[in-house]
């Protein structure tokens, strides 16, 4: 089966007309049968050798997909034993600590899954770990797409689909987390009830809608079960299909590099390279999740006890992807609960519970459209941005992530307090300010770092690498030899298109008549300047020529080419370096 080094393209034997072995004949027969009924030959012809570019960060989305498949596999196992019912029973199983305790059938069946079904606990833990990894992979994948500008035309719709998948992932995680009907998840539901009640006018009805009457009621677990095993996974499956179909249709983006352009794809064929790599990677993701499930306990509901509205444990936290919401609830001061007339508007709940996630998620969903409006760019983009070359976007991304992290930290403020022996009140106050200050600092810092990196790129292109070799001239002057870049090194630093702010027509035409729509254009231009005013443009050939012509940059007049120069420099002291024109010296600009 393995290919030897001699079986490279070009040396492939011509395909024989009659398949030589029985297995090959059977395969050919099956293929013929299928093709005559489905015309699948066309799809195989088009897709089998389709190229995909390679980069480690392209695997983040794969992790999301494979952890989702792991979720489906382990989830089906769990449904065989889980009973989605809130009927009260008395526990009679092997877990002695809860003998005789009254609990819902959902909780009792979760205990049975954990203690009596062999492999049941492993499947539960695989399911839960996979859910955490699923969300983590989705969010890091989104970060990759965001920071490299992979959401630009023609992929805006796929960004929105991906965004919807993330929201569905949250819904799947939340509904599943609540199913065991233990104290911890029950308190999470109680918080949900509190959030929903706070909505003006319809709040109490929304709560009744979800719980089928008063909290906790009799209906919630069966309802969440349907949401968790049918509605949400069905939608996720459909959208994942669409998401991947778009990836095939658009062909995958690629990182910039020599030979990679907007009009080509450079990579390896789906069959066999990515069948093996991606297929293998599924097993790696599943394997790592199995390793975690076998060795790291997660959600030991038997220690928490069945749901009861009275008890709660200190240090209780939701799963990580909900921490930011819980953190926002914790940070909000209570003073903003307003009473207008006889109506209560609990802004202390509505702002963190609805406005914060609304702004965060809404901004995320709309970002590609906002940026496209600001740039006025209607071209297709298939080569990714290096984050340094789009300082504003990169800074916005880091700033939002910083706010997210502050909220996550706020969601753990009690644990921080107990672990580090700090006052919970001081931590909360520090984080209240940090929520506004930290993202601002992160924005400025990130933008500065991006601009500095881009300037550094220009400098290297213009002046070459420092070689750490100092040469002294007869005049006594010292000079460090700089090595010019080879064309591949240079290309990565100069390939990007500079994006400049929009120019608009003046307010008045040549006859002094004010034109309509000027105010709107002005606003758009201001937005555009906000995005693109601060930038470092790539070096042009003319600039490079200019930099070299004034002789300041170790240009070796006798140097026949960069390759030999590199050889000379890395090869130690070469006599040719003495031919340097030392009159002007090498200075940074």
């Amino acid at each position: 089966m393995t290919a030897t080094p001699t079986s490279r393209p070009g040396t492939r034997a011509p395909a024989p007309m009659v398949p030589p072995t029985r297995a090959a004949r059977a395969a050919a027969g099956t293929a013929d049968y299928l093709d005559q009924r489905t015309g699948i030959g066309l799809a195989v012809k088009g897709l089998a050798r389709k190229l995909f570019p390679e980069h480690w960060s392209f695997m983040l989305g794969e992790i999301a997909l494979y952890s989702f498949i792991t979720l489906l596999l382990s989830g089906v196992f769990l449904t065989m034993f889980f009973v989605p019912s809130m009927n009260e029973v008395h526990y009679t199983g092997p877990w002695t600590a809860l003998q005789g305790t009254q609990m819902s059938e959902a909780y009792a069946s979760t205990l049975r899954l954990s203690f009596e079904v062999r492999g049941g606990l492993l499947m539960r833990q695989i399911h839960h770990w996979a859910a955490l990894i699923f969300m983590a992979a989705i969010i890091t994948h989104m970060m990759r797409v965001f920071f490299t500008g992979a959401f630009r035309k023609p992929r805006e719709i796929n960004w929105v689909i991906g965004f919807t998948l993330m929201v569905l992932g949250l819904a799947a995680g939340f509904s599943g987390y609540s199913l065991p009907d233990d104290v911890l998840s029950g308190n999470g539901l109680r918080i949900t009830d509190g959030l929903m009640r706070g909505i003006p006018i319809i709040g109490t009805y929304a709560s009744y809608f979800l719980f089928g009457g008063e909290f906790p009621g009799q209906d919630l677990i069966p309802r969440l079960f349907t949401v968790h095993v049918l509605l949400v996974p069905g939608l996720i499956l459909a959208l994942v299909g669409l998401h991947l179909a778009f990836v095939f249709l658009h062909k995958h983006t690629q990182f910039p590099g020599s030979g990679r352009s907007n009009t080509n794809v450079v990579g390896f064929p789906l069959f066999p390279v990515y069948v093996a790599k991606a297929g293998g990677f599924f097993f790696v993701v599943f394997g790592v999740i199995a390793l975690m499930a076998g060795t790291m306990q997660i959600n030991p509901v038997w220690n928490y006890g069945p749901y009861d509205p009275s008890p709660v444990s200190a240090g209780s936290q939701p799963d990580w992807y909900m921490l930011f919401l819980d953190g926002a609830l914790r940070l909000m001061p209570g003073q903003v609960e307003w009473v207008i007339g006889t109506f209560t508007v609990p802004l202390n709940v509505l702002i963190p519970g609805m406005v914060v996630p609304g702004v965060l998620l809404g901004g995320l969903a709309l970002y590609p459209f906002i940026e496209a409006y600001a740039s006025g760019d209607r071209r297709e983009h298939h080569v990714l941005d290096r984050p340094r070359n789009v300082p504003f976007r990169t800074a916005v991304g880091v700033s939002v992530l910083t706010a997210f992290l502050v909220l996550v930290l706020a969601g753990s403020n009690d644990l921080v307090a107990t672990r580090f022996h700090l006052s919970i009140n001081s931590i909360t106050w520090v984080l209240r300010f940090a929520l506004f200050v930290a993202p601002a600092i992160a924005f400025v810092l990130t933008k500065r770092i991006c601009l500095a990196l881009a300037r550094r790129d220009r400098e290297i292109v213009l002046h070459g690498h420092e070689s750490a070799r100092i040469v002294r001239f007869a005049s006594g002057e010292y000079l460090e030899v700089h090595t010019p870049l080879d064309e591949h090194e240079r290309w990565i630093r100069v390939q990007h298109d500079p994006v400049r702010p929009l120019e608009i027509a003046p307010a008045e035409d040549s006859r002094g008549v004010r034109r309509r729509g000027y105010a709107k254009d002005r606003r758009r231009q201001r937005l555009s300047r906000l995005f693109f005013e601060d930038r470092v443009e790539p070096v042009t050939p003319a600039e490079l020529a200019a930099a070299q012509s004034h002789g300041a940059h170790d240009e070796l007049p006798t140097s026949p080419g960069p390759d030999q120069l590199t050889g000379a420099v890395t090869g130690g002291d070469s006599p040719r370096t003495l031919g340097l024109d030392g009159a002007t010296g090498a200075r940074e600009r």
Partner: protein
Amino acid sequence: MTSIEKHQSPVHTGTGEGLPERFDDPGLPPHEPRRGDLDPAADKTSERIVLALFGLSTLGTIGFLVAYFALPTGQDAATIQRSNMALGLALACALLGIGAAAIHWAKSIMNNHERVEDRHSVASSPEVREAAVANLVAGAQDSGISRRGLLKSALVGSLALFPLTIVVPLVGEVGENWDVASFKRTLWRKGLRLTTDPSGRPIKAADVTVGSIWHVIPEGLEEAPHPLDEKAKAVVIVMRLDQADLVEAPERRDWSHEGIVAYSKICTHVGCPVALYEKDSHHLLCPCHQSTFDVADGCRVVFGPAKRPLPQLPITVDDEGYLVAQSDFTEPIGPSFWDRLR
């Protein structure tokens, strides 16, 4: 949007005349062969590694089956953990073996020459678009919809209305009786005894010592039609404070009994049970979002995201010295909602 144009003129016009505005793509860098491409022995080693990894996977599967049959889940935490860890490690072996083998095969043995394919614009060609529009126009003409306005309205109208057949019963039934006013009532009523949670034992005022906290449910909670729903509203905490420490509003003077006060356990923020009591400072802390209430001062909020004090349950003692409620809460318990004051 013709009034907005891209600024196209290059900002930097260098000294070099006749040079292009941009650098040219130098094209793909030369392919670098792997060790296995040059050395047949290294290639053979790679093949052996792949074989060994597939072998490891098979061993993992066998190990999983052995662990499944040999290790019962048993009765205690230790045996369950043993079974879980053995199954998990074996499964990880089985899966990681396959994964690592396939990836190593791809990286070390499969052809690793990068290939180049052209991209084409996503949009259809103008001819295709024209044909598509023509098809739609022809279809619309065939249907006759453009000439029959009433038909169009009827179609839209009936399509818009029919979902009501699903939505109306759904909304009608999904909230059961829709009696949202029940948020404002709890089981507490005049003379109902305070009992311990969860045993349901009545509490003698004399047993409540200074500094202690009692988790309380109303007597007869288990007989209610939906005990959990009622418990979710009626849970109360009872504490006795030194009467010198207690600050009471004039109208609530008789709501306590010799320094014993009863407050709703449900946080006025989003409804977590407020369960952490610090007896020295008389502070009650909600463990979910850290709203802090001062029991000595009418459970006023001293920190955190809650705005309102915890509602107080007026209590007294009956003839036998047991704590009883004077009435239900005088305001709705728990989180705020739109018409809680109405």
